[in-house]
């Protein structure tokens, strides 16, 4: 197992290097430069040139890349081109908001598991059918749109939910934050409910048909033990692999979702940085995402090997 992990880590380094080169090249291939300068016609060309010099934007692309890389290896992610603040500060400012929302959504989304189990166990019942219809509709409807509709409806009828924002400025209490988190987290959890309930339902149904389940029942085990010890343990294996992606999902906020709920998260910042061509911020975000995807998949693979004794790594 250890050799497996080490081999994967070494591979990750090369993958990250490749991702960084590709991202850098793509970013600079996009037409247009720092829009804050170019969009403003009153700025003389000399000033723009001087600022580009300062930001190192006039060097050839490979040189810029190598400078960036050498900085990153010293753990210096550079400064934003827009306001000259350290990139790390800017990301650290916005990351907690996104993580809070994502974590709440993911945790609430885990409710999909019992939902799927229940649906599988009562196959054909009205609950099962409701769950299946709900998952199809829920998959078809964009979640940020649903959130927007609920907000607008709520604004015009009974004002239950706050119209966006993370907390009420001046009243930053836990209850206030939870109240603001409620709607976005619930809508965000819908993804989890849909995915997990469908996977679990089909997995449980498949396992329930297996011989060893019949054996367990024949042995006289209680239904509870059959479900808990035999069925669920086998049904949850694919879920582990799905969860490999959740680590990266934790930090990648959806810009549409965050815009609808005025959530000051990473998604909005990333899109704004893209439009403004804030290269240092974009590279840092890309590398963060790539690292987490790789790490998440590695952890999922390790967990898979631990959960399923038939799987062996060397």
């Amino acid at each position, binding site marked *: 197992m250890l050799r497996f992990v080490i081999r994967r880590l070494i591979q990750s380094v090369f993958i990250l290097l490749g991702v960084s080169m590709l991202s850098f090249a793509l970013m600079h291939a996009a037409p247009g430069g720092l829009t804050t300068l170019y*969009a403003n016609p009153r700025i003389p060309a000399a*000033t723009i040139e001087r600022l580009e010099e300062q930001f190192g934007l006039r060097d050839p692309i490979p040189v810029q890349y190598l400078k960036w890389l050498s900085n990153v290896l010293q753990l210096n992610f550079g400064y934003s081109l827009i*306001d000259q603040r350290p990139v790390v500060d800017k990301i650290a400012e916005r990351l907690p908001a996104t993580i809070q929302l994502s974590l709440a959504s993911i945790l609430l989304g885990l409710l999909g598991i*019992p939902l799927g189990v*229940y649906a599988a166990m009562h196959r054909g019942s009205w609950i099962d059918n409701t769950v299946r219809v709900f998952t199809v509709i829920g998959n078809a409807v964009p979640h940020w749109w649903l959130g927007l509709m609920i907000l607008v409806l709520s604004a015009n009828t009974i004002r*239950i939910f706050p119209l966006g924002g993370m907390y009420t400025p001046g009243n930053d209490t836990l209850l206030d934050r939870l109240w603001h988190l409620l709607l976005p987290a619930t809508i965000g959890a819908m993804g989890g409910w849909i995915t997990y309930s469908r996977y679990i339902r089909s997995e449980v149904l498949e396992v329930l048909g297996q011989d060893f389940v019949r054996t367990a029942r024949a042995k006289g085990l209680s239904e509870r033990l059959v479900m808990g010890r035999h069925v669920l343990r086998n049904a949850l294996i694919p879920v582990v692999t799905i969860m490999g992606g959740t680590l990266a999902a934790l930090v990648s906020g959806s810009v549409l979702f965050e815009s*609808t709920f*005025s959530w*000051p998260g990473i998604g909005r910042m990333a899109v704004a940085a893209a*439009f403004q061509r804030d290269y240092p911020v974009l590279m840092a975000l890309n590398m963060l995402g790539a690292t987490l995807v790789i790490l998440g998949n590695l952890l999922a693979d390790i967990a898979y090997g631990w959960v399923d004794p038939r799987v062996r790594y060397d």
Partner: protein
Amino acid sequence: MIAARFGRWCRPALGMLIALLLAACTGTDPSRSTERSPTSGGAARQGGAMTVAVTADAVSFHPYKTTDAASRDYQSLVYANGLLSRDPHNPDNFIPELAESWSLAEDRVTYTFRLRPDIRWSDGQPITSADFKWTFEQARRPENAYPYVSNFDTIAAYEAPDPRTIVVTLKEPLAVGLENADAVVPLPKHIWEKLDWNDPNRNPEIMAPTVVSGPFKLKEWVRDSHAIFVANDLYFKGRPKLDTYEIRVVGTPQMAFQKLRAGEVDQASIPPEDYEQAKRLDHITVYEWWPAAATWSYIGFNLRKPYLQDVTVRRALAHAVDRQLIIDKIQYGLAQPTYSAFTPTCWCYNPDVPRYDYDPARARALLAQAGWVPGPDNVLTKDGQRLRLRLLFGPNSNKVRERIATVVQEEFRKLGVEVEIQGLEWAAFLQAIKSPPFDWDLVVLGWVSTVDPHWMYQVWAEQNIPQLNAGAYVNKRVEELFKQGAREFDRERRKQIYQEIQRILAEDVPYIFLTMNKAYTGISNRIGGVEVSPLGIGYNIEQWYVK
């Protein structure tokens, strides 16, 4: 059983959910006033908080590093604007701001300003001419890369002979000299001279100014979430009536309006499609005005293309644009037509310029006159070349420009002109129109005018091709007239000059002038003291109060 296990923790979870909902229903948003006053009446009283929804957060509080509107708005809350400001009810005239009086010497280049006697920074230190001079000298340094440093080009000398006097000498007599001489927003020298001008990591004042001169002081700024400002007791126009001014950053303009509607905020801009609805609401007032610094849109021609160099062709195409349709259907009636390089809200406006009203028959006739005849597939051709035009607009998310482009394409198609539309992302769009090979024919764009007409010379100058003069229009007579207008002190004669400029530009048709936008915003009726003017509503923010 799983069901039983489910049921066991289901109840406490449900209980918590209900508790949260109850808390939400019964709890009130403490940032709103709990008193709901009637819409009329209520004397101007001290105290209270006002909340504003905006869709863009500022970049920083540094007046000499930022160029975006949101940063300017935040800065104008904490820094006084300078020596003078424009009279909101007569924007061509100046009124005292930090300066109480000024005079122009006989030589017409030396401006002497006398500062008000008792103006102070928020830490109690007096605001003196030394602050102005120091700020000017810092902003002027090339290594400080002030984006608008070209504003200083006309200034020969900037002196502070005594703490209350500033003497600015220009290089030549200019009609806009007063505006030029009032060149800087002062920063507190005694604080900033010890700090780095450029680096926010070494100068905390850039992101969180503590010593200010404006109506409010910054209390808290959480990026992309909110910014809270509190009244500055030492503001030279008097402490604002509002105690707190809070800006909330909202994700989309639609949500901003919803917040205004729901009473969560007191001010928000209104998306054009919601304008009618907003006017019908009882608890908000929609303030609207035609701004002196107008936002107007146009279709620009790329005059590098030989087939567009024929003025008859340009005039013909101008006749094919239905401005009223654009105003009614695309801009929801929130605009008026423009036919000139200066808008009706400018003192120099020329109402008698040649107009190209919507007249497709005339358009066809003019094109025929220019030698363009319908070819085999009804597309106009001349000497074997088809009249095929490429129209760019940006950003591609701007629905108004997209629709204008579509309308134009349709109208031109009826004439026999093929138009290919391309919408580009903003940065890509700028690069496309401003760099070789200039592979475009038409562009849908807009300008925000300046109050004084002089500054628009930059748009028509040859040396500003392609930076500002994207279409490569060259007319030395127009440039000469702008130079004359800059030097003409007599208002009537100056007006004549700009009217002549407008006549020439209307005849030459480098642009098809389209419309000028109405400005409007929605404010809750619980806020009083708001008065519209051609300069907007923010000019007297220290007098706004909670009823």
